[in-house]
């Protein structure tokens, strides 16, 4: 593993950078409760569509502060929702700020946030949405859904794909025919409509967790088939390799041969394909949420935040910061693509 990282760093800087960026995103997703300055569902009706809060170091009278501060915003034009800063008093940004009560990881009660400002001033790094909720906090909270759905979905569908593809290719015969025809049956349906059809079989009133699990299961049930077919093909050719015969001559069991000789040799493909297919899950969740079939309000995911944003074109043109979740989707998808590309070269010992 260490070796792989070193090679990645040396051979493909972009992929390495993508990996670092992804690690950073996942880390912030894990500690979202603490890093986000507000709970994701905390509404502030006086701050609907507030713009990103400006951070200052110098007061309007020219006084310089080493500690960054913000001004309080007030609504100047209630028709176009224009806000203006009230420059009479600076509100300093504090680390380990004491704010509203919340629960870290949903269990540990805490009042502390990584940073924040005193009320009535607010710190909305990415502005606020229609209900006056902090977009930054919601993006962090939503990243938990959007980032984990890819990993969980890929692990399920790759488990299925490797297992069924491996068995199918190794043992062949009737089992192979049965498994592959099943996979083809899944593949003939256009993915998106299959997704909608499967979604329709579940009730519309589900809790966030249930919806989350449902989306993962739906996406993995669609995703395993193509992988299983490719793995089957690879196993089919690998099982004729001399080193597999040698392993059989040694007396190795079928499971040992599959696990130690055949599947590891599909690894460079598998890892690359897994990395490259994660964006599909993130986009799939976004697409479902965009249609209102995914994660439901007030819970946040990048998809449903974007859905709320693009419902009204005027909103987008006046309050462009509501599109920031889309930017995060873009970054994540790109990063996974670069990483997958880089891993392809690095995972093969013959290339070292």
């Amino acid at each position: 593993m260490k070796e792989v990282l070193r090679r990645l760093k040396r051979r493909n800087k972009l992929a390495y950078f993508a990996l670092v960026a992804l690690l950073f995103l996942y880390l912030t997703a894990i500690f979202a409760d603490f890093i986000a300055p507000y709970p994701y569902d905390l509404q502030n009706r006086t701050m609907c569509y507030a713009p990103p809060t400006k951070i200052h170091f110098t007061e309007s009278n020219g006084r310089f502060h080493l500690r960054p501060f913000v001004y309080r915003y007030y609504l100047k034009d209630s028709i176009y929702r224009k806000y203006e800063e009230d420059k009479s008093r600076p509100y300093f940004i504090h680390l380990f700020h004491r704010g509203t009560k919340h629960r870290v990881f949903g269990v540990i009660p805490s009042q502390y946030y990584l940073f924040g400002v005193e009320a009535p001033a607010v710190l909305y790094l990415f502005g606020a949405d229609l209900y006056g909720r902090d977009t930054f906090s919601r993006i962090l909270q939503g990243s938990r859904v959007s980032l984990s759905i890819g990993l969980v979905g890929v692990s399920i569908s790759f488990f299925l794909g490797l297992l069924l593809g491996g068995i199918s290719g190794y043992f062949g015969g009737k089992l192979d025919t049965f498994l592959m025809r099943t996979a083809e049956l899944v593949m003939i349906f256009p993915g998106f409509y299959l997704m909608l059809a499967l979604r329709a079989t579940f009730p519309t009133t589900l809790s966030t967790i249930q919806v989350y699990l449902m989306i993962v299961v739906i996406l993995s049930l669609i995703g395993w088939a193509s992988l299983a077919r490719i793995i089957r093909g690879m196993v089919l050719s690998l099982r004729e390799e001399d080193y597999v015969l040698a392993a059989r001559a040694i007396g190795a069991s079928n499971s040992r041969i599959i696990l130690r000789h055949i599947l590891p040799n599909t690894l460079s493909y598998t890892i690359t394909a897994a990395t490259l297919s994660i964006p599909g899950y993130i986009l799939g969740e976004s697409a479902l949420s965009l249609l209102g079939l995914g994660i439901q309000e007030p819970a946040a995911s990048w998809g449903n935040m974007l859905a709320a944003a693009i419902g009204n074109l005027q909103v987008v043109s006046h309050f462009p910061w509501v599109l920031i979740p889309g930017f995060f989707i873009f970054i994540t998808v790109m990063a996974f693509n670069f990483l997958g590309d880089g891993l392809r070269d690095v995972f093969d010992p013959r290339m070292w």
Partner: protein
Amino acid sequence: MAKEIFIRAENLKKYYSITKATFSIGSKEMVKAVDNLSFEIRKGEILGLVGESGCGKTTLGKLLLKLVEPDKGKLYYRGEELFTLPAKRLRRMRRELQIIFQDPYKSLNPRMRVAEIIAEPLFVHNLYKNKERERVKELLELVGLPPTSISNFPHQFSGGGRQRINIARALATNPEFIVCDEPVSNLDVSISAQILNLLKELRKRFALTYLFISHDLSVVGYFCDRIMVMYKGKIVETAPAEELYQNPSHPYTKTLLSSIPRIKRSLLLEKGHG
């Protein structure tokens, strides 16, 4: 050479069918890779198996280890029938029967280090418990590889080095019989001589029995005690090496012999062989 019979094959048969076109009816053609062969291998001997490429030599070698399913026939290994053995017994039996493959570039898993490759048979058969590493080093020394190569990958070796790894793996479980499937045909001359000498030395040291498959009569002549000549799935002639050279009875053997470059042949005869 009235030694005990080690392996006895009776009416071994393996046909491969080739279908000519996808939708053709009844036009299946059979390739008779191994066609009703019966022969014996005695304990401690090196039996050579020669023939042109595609005549079924490799299939026969694999049949002897049940690496391909036979269509018909019986194979007795010290009186025990190998083909009807239950899977578990067969796997235990594999300890004693090993194979060295022709292509040293394909016969080693590119993802495993040398230590894992050579130790795998030990793990499979639970041998040398907790002393696997020492055993691997011992084997490396035996085949003439430095003990530092233990953590290398196969692609870091030359063809000869890889073939030595193959031999070490085959020897790991102290087998009695090794099928050498053209072990030197992919190596250049000087390396192949080294490998052949190594095989000869190991045979003496561990009282091994070899089935040595080759398409090169000059190599077989140097290496084997007895030679079987195979042609289109059948054995056309079996004779002690010397006799075969001096006195080939089958026309195909004669053709094979005449295909050896002359200078080599005269040298062989001069040496008197043996």
